[in-house]
C-alpha cells in the first residue's frame, strides 16, 4: 500500500502509524554486528532511492548475544529484493540522505522531496485477498 508525503513529514507520520503487523528483517550478520531493518520503507521516486529505519546490533562476548546498539537510517539504491544496502548512518532520513548525496541537493530540496511510504506485507495481504 502506497501513501505519498514530503520527506520532511515522513518521520512524524511513521511515529503515528501502526506498523505492528510488519516484521523486521535481518539484512546483514557478521561476527561482530547485525543490521536489522524495519519491514516498511520509504521510496523516493525522483532519486530512485529507498530509505529504511534500522538498528545496528553488536555481539556481546560475555552474554553471547547480539544486543541493539544504535538506531540508523539505511539507504538502498535498487529494488529491496536484492537486499544490498549502500549506506547507513546513525541519523534520521533527511540528514542521512543529505550526507549520502554529498551536496548534490540542498537540505531545502531534500525536505521537499516527494516520497511514498510502503507497507509491503499489507500490500501482499490485500493483493492475495483480492
Amino acid at each position: 500500500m502506497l501513501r505519498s508525503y514530503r520527506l520532511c513529514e515522513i518521520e512524524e507520520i511513521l511515529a503515528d502509524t501502526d506498523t505492528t503487523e510488519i516484521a523486521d528483517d535481518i539484512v546483514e550478520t557478521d561476527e561482530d554486528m547485525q543490521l536489522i531493518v524495519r519491514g516498511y520503507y520509504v521510496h523516493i521516486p525522483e532519486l530512485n532511492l529507498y530509505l529504511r529505519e534500522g538498528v545496528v546490533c553488536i555481539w556481546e562476548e560475555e552474554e553471547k548475544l547480539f544486543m541493539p546498539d544504535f538506531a540508523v537510517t539505511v539507504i538502498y539504491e535498487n529494488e529491496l529484493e536484492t537486499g544490498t544496502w549502500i549506506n547507513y548512518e546513525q541519523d534520521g532520513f533527511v540528514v542521512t540522505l543529505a550526507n549520502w548525496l554529498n551536496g548534490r541537493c540542498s537540505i531545502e530540496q531534500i525536505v521537499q522531496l516527494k516520497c511514498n511510504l510502503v507497507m509491503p506485507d499489507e500490500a501482499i495481504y490485500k493483493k492475495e485477498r483480492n
Partner: protein
Amino acid sequence: MKYSIKVNEVKSKEGGNIRGFATVVFGDSFKITNIAILENKEKGQLFVSMPRYKSNERDGNGSTIYKDICNPITAEFREELYGNILEAFEQIQVAEQNQDKKREMRVLLKSQSFL
C-alpha cells in the same frame, strides 16, 4: 499506569537471538522505542532489554559498559511491563501463525480450483 505496547517481530532465516522490538507509549504522550525482545537460546527464554548507551566506563576485561537509557524503577512495575511486552510478542506470533494458515488455505483453494 496507562500505557500501550506495540511489537514488531524480527524475521530471521538464520535464527538470530533478537526476536523483536517493542514501542511503549506512556499516557498517550511519552514514547520509548527500540526496546529489544531477546532470546537466550541456552535457556530457551525470552527477555526484555531497554534501549542502552555506551558509557565511558570499562569492566574488568576492558569491555565497554552499556547502561540503560531508561528503566522501570520498581521491581513490581518492571515485572508488569516486561511481562506485558512478552505477552504482546506472543500474541503477535499467534496472530501471524493464524494468518500463515489462512494464506496456505487460500493457495490450496486456488490450486484446487484450477484442477
